[in-house]
């Protein structure tokens, strides 16, 4: 094996061998290492070895076989090293992601971390990563954020400047989150808007991938069905990977990654690695979103608590007022009877006393003073009653909701399906709340009693012009014309129990409100009770928010 090859020399000069790379000067001095590391790349050396099988009886003839095996092993080793490197990257990366997961409840920070990982050399080294998230209302997949160089010369520079400091992925993500997030968001605004897609478009590539919960490596977007041409144009690439983000079957979003700058084909490894990390990222995004929701709920709860406290204080004040009213009324009662007796008898006496009698003046004084005291008493009572005006402005939707709430248990017990149908924005109306509650309750109770074996009941509020209506319908047996005529007279009742006062009192209450009650029903076909009330024309109290 002497074909001008330098393998047998113990030491060589750099110009002797073109295969020794700069920085490998040690190989020039160490023959054994040189042979193992570089000589196999040299065609002269290989030729020489292959020519060794001249004599089959010579063990040297085995060298070419061994050589082939050695080369195959070398190739395998290189492949395995590559895979180990990828796995290492994944493990390291997942470890770092998990660190963020354990500590961050800020959605944007989590996202910055994830997209940094996809696009930085320390992560997967893809050129660009785009994140679409399912919006809060769960109507569409919205472009949320993207990371990557805007143009060729930016490629790599973005990360090089921070990679030079040898930051960990976590530090990089934090730097990115603090310094570049807003700028990046602005840069990709147009693209993100174009990529947003309604969830209802089940045929769309993005939605299909998300619903299927399997990642896709699309080599040519233009051959894919269900993606809009303008979306392809906005992406500016034909090859992308799509990784659905799902947490416990709940769709979170979609990660799109590509090599928009260097056009390097995306490998299966890249896709697998992205898939590996999609789950923890989905989980983190979901968790951050939940945390955000929790915060919102907390604020609401705090507000509700505050409102409750205000209400409680109000109730306490009202209770005090009510107590004042009770005390006043009791005093009035204990004074009124004696006054009635004193004044009454004085008046009785005076009738039989002639005008010239001196006693008459005395008795007149008694009458006069008794009357004065009665007037004072009436004033006090009027005042204490004015503290609780019986007629006040109310929202009929609130009235209906309140009554419905009070009867819900009865309805459930009676297996009655009740629908509350409130027209929003009805004007406020002057009414005596307590009495109207009684009235509506009687009507609904009546309907419940008409449904001993369950059924359906509807409470509806509506308003046309200045006519406000509360309608209670039931699917009961209806009312015969005879019964219809007498249903509002006192003590009329078709039922075994009950005083029979309900609907007649209703009629009187409504009369006092200037309202009317319509009863429509035919035997066998349910009944509809409608209360008609007039809204005051001259007073415009604005409308309520409704129900």
């Amino acid at each position, binding site marked *: 094996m002497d074909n001008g090859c330098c393998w047998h020399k113990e030491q060589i000069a750099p110009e002797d061998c073109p295969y020794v790379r700069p920085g490998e000067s040690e190989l020039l001095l160490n023959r054994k290492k040189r042979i193992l590391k570089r000589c196999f790349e040299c065609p002269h050396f290989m030729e020489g070895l292959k020519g060794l099988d001249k004599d089959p009886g010579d063990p040297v003839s085995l060298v070419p076989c061994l050589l082939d095996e050695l080369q195959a092993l070398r190739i395998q080793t290189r492949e395995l090293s590559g895979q180990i490197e990828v796995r290492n990257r994944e493990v390291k990366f997942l470890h770092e992601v998990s660190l963020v997961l354990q500590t961050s409840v800020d959605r944007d920070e989590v996202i910055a971390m994830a997209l940094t990982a996809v696009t930085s050399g320390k992560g997967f080294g893809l050129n660009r990563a785009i994140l679409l998230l399912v919006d809060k209302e769960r109507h569409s997949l919205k472009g949320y954020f993207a990371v990557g160089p805007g143009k060729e010369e930016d490629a790599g520079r973005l990360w090089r400047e921070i990679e030079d400091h040898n930051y960990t992925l976590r530090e990089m993500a934090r730097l990115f989150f603090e310094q570049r997030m807003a700028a990046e968001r602005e840069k990709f605004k147009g693209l993100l808007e174009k990529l947003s897609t309604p969830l209802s478009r089940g045929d769309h590539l993005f939605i299909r991938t998300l619903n299927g919960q399997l990642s896709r490596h699309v080599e040519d977007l233009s051959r894919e069905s269900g993606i809009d041409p303008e979306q392809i144009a906005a992406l500016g690439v034909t090859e992308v990977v799509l990784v659905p983000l799902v947490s416990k079957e709940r769709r979170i979003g979609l990660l799109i990654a590509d090599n928009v700058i260097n056009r390097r084909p995306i490998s299966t490894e890249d896709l697998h690695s992205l898939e590996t990390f999609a789950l923890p990222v989905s989980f983190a995004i979901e968790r951050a979103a939940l945390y955000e929701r929790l915060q919102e709920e907390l604020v609401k709860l705090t507000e509700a608590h505050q409102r409750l406290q205000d209400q409680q204080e109000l109730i306490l004040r009202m209770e005090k007022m009510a107590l004042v009213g009770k005390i006043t009324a009791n005093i*009035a009662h204990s004074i009124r009877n004696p006054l*009635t*007796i004193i004044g009454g008898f004085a008046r*009785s006496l005076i*009738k039989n006393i002639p005008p010239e009698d001196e006693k008459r003046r005395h008795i007149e004084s008694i009458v006069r003073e008794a009357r004065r005291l009665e007037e004072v008493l009436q004033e006090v009572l009027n005042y204490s009653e004015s503290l609780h005006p019986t007629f006040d402005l109310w929202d009929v939707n609130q009235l209906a909701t309140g009554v419905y709430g009070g009867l819900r248990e009865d309805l459930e017990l009676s297996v009655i399906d009740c629908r509350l149908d409130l027209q929003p924005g009805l004007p406020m109306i002057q009414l005596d709340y307590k*009495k109207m509650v009684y009235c509506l309750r009687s009507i609904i109770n009546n309907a419940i009693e008409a449904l001993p074996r369950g059924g359906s009941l509807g409470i509806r509020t509506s308003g046309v012009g200045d006519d406000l209506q509360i309608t209670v319908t039931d699917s009961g047996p209806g009312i015969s014309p005879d019964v219809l005529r007498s249903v509002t007279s006192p003590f009329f009742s078709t039922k075994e129990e009950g005083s029979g006062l309900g609907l007649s009192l209703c009629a009187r209450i409504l009369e006092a409100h200037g309202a009317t009650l319509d009863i429509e029903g035919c035997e066998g076909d349910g009944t509809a009770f409608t209360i008609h009330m007039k809204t005051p024309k001259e007073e415009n109290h604005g409308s309520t928010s409704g129900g």
Partner: protein
Amino acid sequence: MARLLVVDDERDIRHLYAAELSDEGYKVETAGTGSEAAALLEGQAFDLVVLDIQMKGESGLQVLQKIVKERSDLPVVLCTAFSCYKDDFSSWLADAYVVKSSDLTELKGEIRRLLEKKESSLRRP
């Protein structure tokens, strides 16, 4: 001569009403409790009842409900020291509602009105 029944648990009020209403030309009987009133109503015919609400034992409103249920043609004037009973639905069953006063003009007016109303409805064929 119309016969009235005055029901009140205060003796002096009963005396006053009986004296004043007799002067008006009515024949007046008095009762101090609901059960006394019930016994009197049972035994004799009356044309009208004057009824106090706040009584010891059975309240006037309970008596009223009984009267309305059993003798729906018998007019009742509710008489009370409270004006807040106007809000009580059961008091709406009464034909008139008078707040007690040393001036009995209003009470007498209501009694006269109700008796006339009853007369005219009886005269109608």
